[in-house]
Structure formats: structure tokens, C-alpha cells
């Protein structure tokens, strides 16, 4: 152990080169596959008509297929299978509303994709069937290599036009996979699209990687890695692959969470003997201690105001969620429903806080309405952990057990539809949903 500690320290530059070479690889083979496990009862019927294509199309899924899957994944839509469509219009003048009404559709999305040189252009129009009205329409383009980004962009626009809420399909997921072969374990920190596609390995290590957290500009990840034999907090710039070990104190260095200006991190350190929450200024490494209690205080995360924060503390026996409205405020207990509530993740509006909740010896994801204090258990699976809310507050991703393996599951944030994102191999855990970058 002690031996390993020293050698790993010297290997550090080597690790960086490994990461850089991984970055160069286009796409990892460890793509996640979406599988729908449960549809919502109140999903909106929508038809995403296959877009007509002209010119040389990039390989892979069609734009309209990606859009259809995105909308389905949100749990708020129930897209019609193309085989069941009576006609396949590609522009507004070809849409016969009567046909779509007959199929019970509320919205129809039509479009055309064309390619010229390296550019892919999509022209799309969204129609409200009952009002026979055009709701949205635009032309968007992207390099051929970014066809999926183009599709997710259209999904965002369609979602916004219908629900009034910003779509979150162009955001990213970070998660950690674990592959075991014999005695060897390989942990990989990966970043993918929200639908699990275009996964890329950002860090590979024989030791655990935990708690990835996105910076507000979605350009960096902070996480805990045990690569030196003990936990340390790292900040990792995704574009360059450059990493910085920001917290490597004696004892525990864990649970980083970004401030909304991206200049500081909340984290749990036990350098003063006991697990407490600190804020680190990333520019100069200055620390401010924010909790002071002989019990364990950990898992901090800023609330929507950016001034207060939620955290887990066992000061009342078992772990419970507390909130401090400012650095110096008295902590207020949020959860009362059971003996174990941990890992708080608030939404961006301050309406709900999501967390791991133990009931009858199994772990579920629950949320508490911060206004009324009402608690709702959202998941029916067992051994659920690591909730992360989509930046628009409509979807929730968490890790759960499926047989021996850990898989990621996406549910509607109110507990409706559920989708699993099983890894093609091994365990997936510690998901983190990136912010929407404007």
C-alpha cells in the first residue's frame, strides 16, 4: 500500500498522457443502451415523421430517430412508430391534419435533412394537430460529425415549444463504470450524451473514482479519485484533459460541489480530525470551514440561490439532510420520513430536493417539497443511489442494481416514466447531469 502510494505519485504525468490518448479515440465501445422499462400514463402523443434526406448522410442513426428517442426518454411524450403513420410528409403543406387526428396525435414534427460538403442542414416544422397551427420551425445546421448534436438541438426546440420548459437533451452525463476481470478492477470516468451515446472515457484508473460534479459552464469535472491510494479531489478540464489535484489533505477528501460562479468548490475534508464541510477558493486554495460539529457532515451541494447549501449529517443519529441558508446560518433539518436520508441534490428552482431514502431496509430515491415539507418516494427499485436532477428539473437519473450489476435509470422527476441505461459491460454508477450552457 505504502509502496504503491509513492510509485503512483510518480506515475502521475504518465496518467495524463494515457488520458490524452484516450481523448484522441473517437468514441468508446462502452456505449450505453437505452431501454424503456415503463411508459408514463399521461404521455403526449407526437409523431416525428422520418425526415427526407438528400445528399450523403453520415453513418449512424437518422436525425428524426434520435429526436423521437429523445422525446420518448423524457417520459412526457409517446411518439408514434413510423410504420403506423398514414403518410410521411416532410413539409407543412403536405400535412393533412385529419390523418393525424385519426391517429390520435397531438403534434406532428416534419422535416428535411440535406448535406453539402461537410455541413448537415435540417429544416423542421412542428404542428399542433387540433389547432392546425404551426408552433415552431427553423433551419439548423451542424458539421456532419456533430449530427447527434443537431438532433438533440431539434429535440430541445420541440420540447420547449410544447412544454414551455427548456429541453435538456443537449446536455451531457458523467458517470463511472467499473469493469472487473479476475482480481483487477478498472474504473472509467466517462462522459456521454444524455441518451448514453457518444460515450468517451475521460479517466481510467485501477482505484475507485467517485462523485463527479460538473462545473457551471460544463467545461470541467471535479471528482474524487483514489489513484494515489487515498481519496483526493481533482478538477479536470474536459477539452484539454488537464487535471489538477486540488485537495489532498490528510484523511478524507470527498464530495466536491461547484459554486454557481465556478470559482470555488464545496467539499468534505477530515483534515481537522472530523468530517466537516469546507469551501475552497480554486484560485488560491484558501479554505473556509462551513460546519462545526463532532458528528459527520458531508455531501454538500449548493441550493438554487447559490448562497446556502444542503448537506448530510448524522448529528441526530442516522444520516439526515440539513440545509444552511448561508455560511453562518443555523442548519435546518429537511428530512424526517425515515432513519436514513442522504446525498441531497436540489433542483435548479428551489422547489424540491432529491436524495437517497431508506425504507424497510431498501434504498429508494425520494424528494421533499421544500415549501410544504411533503416527502414523495419516487422509485420502486431497491438499492437506489446517487440521484442527479436534469438541469430543467424534469428528469432524474440514478444508479440502481440489476442483478449483480449497477445500472443507470432515468425517471420523470415526479416519479412517472422510467428508462434504464444499462452499460454493455460491467457496472455503471455515480451519474452526474451537466448544466444547460447558454
Amino acid at each position, binding site marked *: 500500500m505504502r509502496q504503491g502510494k509513492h510509485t503512483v505519485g510518480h506515475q502521475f504525468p504518465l496518467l495524463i498522457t494515457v488520458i490524452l490518448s484516450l481523448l484522441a479515440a473517437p468514441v468508446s465501445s462502452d456505449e450505453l443502451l437505452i431501454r424503456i422499462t415503463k411508459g408514463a400514463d399521461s404521455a403526449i402523443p407526437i409523431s416525428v415523421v422520418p425526415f427526407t434526406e438528400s445528399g450523403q448522410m453520415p453513418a449512424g442513426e437518422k436525425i428524426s430517430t434520435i429526436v423521437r428517442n429523445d422525446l420518448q426518454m423524457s417520459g412526457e411524450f409517446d411518439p408514434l412508430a413510423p410504420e403506423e403513420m398514414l403518410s410521411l410528409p416532410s413539409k407543412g403543406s403536405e400535412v393533412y391534419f385529419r390523418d393525424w387526428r385519426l391517429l390520435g396525435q397531438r403534434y406532428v414534427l416534419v422535416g428535411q435533412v440535406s448535406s453539402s460538403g461537410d455541413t448537415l442542414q435540417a429544416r423542421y416544422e412542428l404542428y399542433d394537430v387540433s389547432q392546425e397551427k404551426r408552433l415552431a420551425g427553423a433551419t439548423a445546421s451542424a458539421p456532419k460529425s456533430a449530427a447527434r448534436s443537431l438532433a438533440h438541438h431539434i429535440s430541445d426546440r420541440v420540447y420547449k415549444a410544447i412544454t414551455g420548459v427548456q429541453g435538456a437533451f443537449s446536455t451531457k452525463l458523467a458517470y463511472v463504470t467499473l469493469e472487473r476481470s479476475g482480481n483487477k478492477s478498472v474504473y472509467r470516468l466517462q462522459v456521454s450524451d444524455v441518451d448514453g451515446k457518444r460515450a468517451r472515457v475521460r479517466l481510467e484508473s485501477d482505484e475507485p473514482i467517485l462523485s463527479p460534479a460538473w462545473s457551471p459552464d460544463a467545461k470541467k469535472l471535479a471528482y474524487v479519485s483514489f489513484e494515489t491510494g487515498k481519496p483526493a479531489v481533482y478538477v479536470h478540464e474536459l477539452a484539454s484533459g488537464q487535471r489538477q489535484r486540488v485537495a489532498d489533505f490528510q484523511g478524507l477528501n470527498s464530495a466536491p460541489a461547484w459554486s454557481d460562479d465556478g470559482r470555488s468548490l464545496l467539499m468534505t475534508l477530515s483534515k481537522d480530525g472530523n*468530517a466537516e464541510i469546507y469551501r475552497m477558493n480554486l484560485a488560491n486554495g484558501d479554505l473556509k470551514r462551513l460546519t462545526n460539529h463532532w458528528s459527520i457532515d458531508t455531501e454538500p451541494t449548493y441550493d438554487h440561490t447559490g448562497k446556502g447549501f444542503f448537506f448530510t449529517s448524522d448529528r441526530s443519529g442516522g444520516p439526515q439532510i440539513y440545509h444552511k441558508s448561508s455560511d453562518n446560518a443555523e442548519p435546518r433539518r429537511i428530512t424526517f420520513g425515515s432513519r436514513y436520508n442522504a446525498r441531497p441534490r436540489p433542483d435548479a428552482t428551489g422547489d424540491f430536493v432529491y436524495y437517497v431514502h431508506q425504507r424497510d431496509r431498501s434504498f429508494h430515491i425520494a424528494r421533499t417539497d421544500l415549501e410544504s415539507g411533503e416527502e414523495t418516494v419516487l422509485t420502486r427499485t431497491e438499492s437506489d443511489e446517487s440521484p442527479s436532477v436534469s438541469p430543467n428539473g424534469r428528469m432524474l437519473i440514478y444508479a440502481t442494481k440489476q442483478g449483480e450489476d449497477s445500472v443507470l435509470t432515468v425517471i420523470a422527476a415526479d416519479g412517472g416514466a422510467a428508462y434504464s441505461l444499462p452499460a454493455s459491460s460491467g457496472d455503471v454508477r455515480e451519474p452526474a447531469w451537466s448544466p444547460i450552457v447558454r
Partner: protein
Amino acid sequence: MASMLLPLAFWPAAAWSQSSGSGSQANAELFYMIQQLQTEVRQLRGEVEEQRNQIDRLNRQSRDRYIDLDQRILKLSSELSDLDKPAASDPVTGQGSEAAVEQREYRQPSAEERKEYEALQTLIRKDKKFNEAINGLYDFIDKYEEGDLTVNAYYWLGEVYLAENQLEQAKQAFTIVATRYGDHRKASDAVYKLGVTLDRLGETAEAARRMEAVIRNYPDSNAASLAKTFLDDKTG
């Protein structure tokens, strides 16, 4: 979850390592005692927090129940007054539920009560902190029952709800003053405001009925002339 367990493992180890030499026995006992105390403090803290939460919940529930009950009484009394309707032309029996039956003596406020009331007035008129005022008014009503200013507090509750456009709640508050304290000096204003609230709720016929009641029951009041203007505007 791992992060919760790790420090538990560290913490006793660190404390034990300090206890060495001849004092180790005493230190060990002290350490054991501290641990026991910590466990107990944790447990007590948990109980205090849970009880505080329960009290908050009970408070909220009793307020909700109160509003619910009031709504039902309101419904009942309006049904009752509907039963009286055929006789509405009769000035004696047709006064409905807003009748000023007889003059009552209201309990005069204590200095403290008056001070709290004035603080609420500042909150409403000057600071316009309506949400805070609503809570304050409820607390005031809970604390000082059946006093002169209690009726005022109900009336102002109605005003604040009206300003906040919470019409159902405003309706309830004004109805309480109008039905329960028909002889209070605020009653005429309350019946008038009840009419305004009903009008905003779209219940124009009911609104007109209240306005007529103000004019009939409180002919000399300021509210009566406001009610006349209201009716003239509606008909004219």
C-alpha cells in the same frame, strides 16, 4: 455511502491513539463516557428536531382544518340564507346572515395587544409584506380571541388576501366579520368588501345582494355610500 462510513472508522482510531501510558485507563473511561454522551445527545437532538417538525405540521394542519371548517360553515350559512330568500322583501327577516342583530360589548385590547396590532398595520400599509402579515394576523387571531381588534384582524386578513388576489380566502375572512360580528364597527366595511370579492369571483348576483345588505343594514355608514356607487356603476 462510503463517505459516511469512512470517518466513523477514522475517528475512534484517532482518539484511541492519544490514550497511552499510565493514564490510559482513565482516558479510556473518559473516552467511553464521551462516546456515550455523544450518542445520547444525537438521540435527543433527533427527538427535538422531529418534535419541532411535528409541531410545525400540526400547526399547519390545524390552520388548514380551520379554513376547511370555515368554508363548510360558510356554505351552510349561505344555504340557510337561501332558504330565507322568499322573505327577502321583509326588512325584519330578510336581513340574511349579515344582520346587525344587537349591539355587543367587545373586549378592549391590552397595551401589548394594541402594540402587536399596530406592528401588523405597519407590515400591511407601509412595508406591504403581505405574506408575513397573513401569518401575523392568524397568530394574532389565535392569541387574542373575541376582542375588538380581533375583528379588525379578520377584516384586514380579508383585505390582504384581496390584495394578493386570493379571493376564496378573502371571501372567508370578510364573511367571518360579516356573519359573526355583524354588530362590529368594521362589519359594514366587511360586507361591502365581501361584495367586491364576490364580484371579482364572478358571482355578480351575490355581490349585488351584499351591496344591498350594506345599504339596508348600515344606511349611515361610509360603506353604504360606496355600495350605492358600486350598484350605480353596475346598473348604469
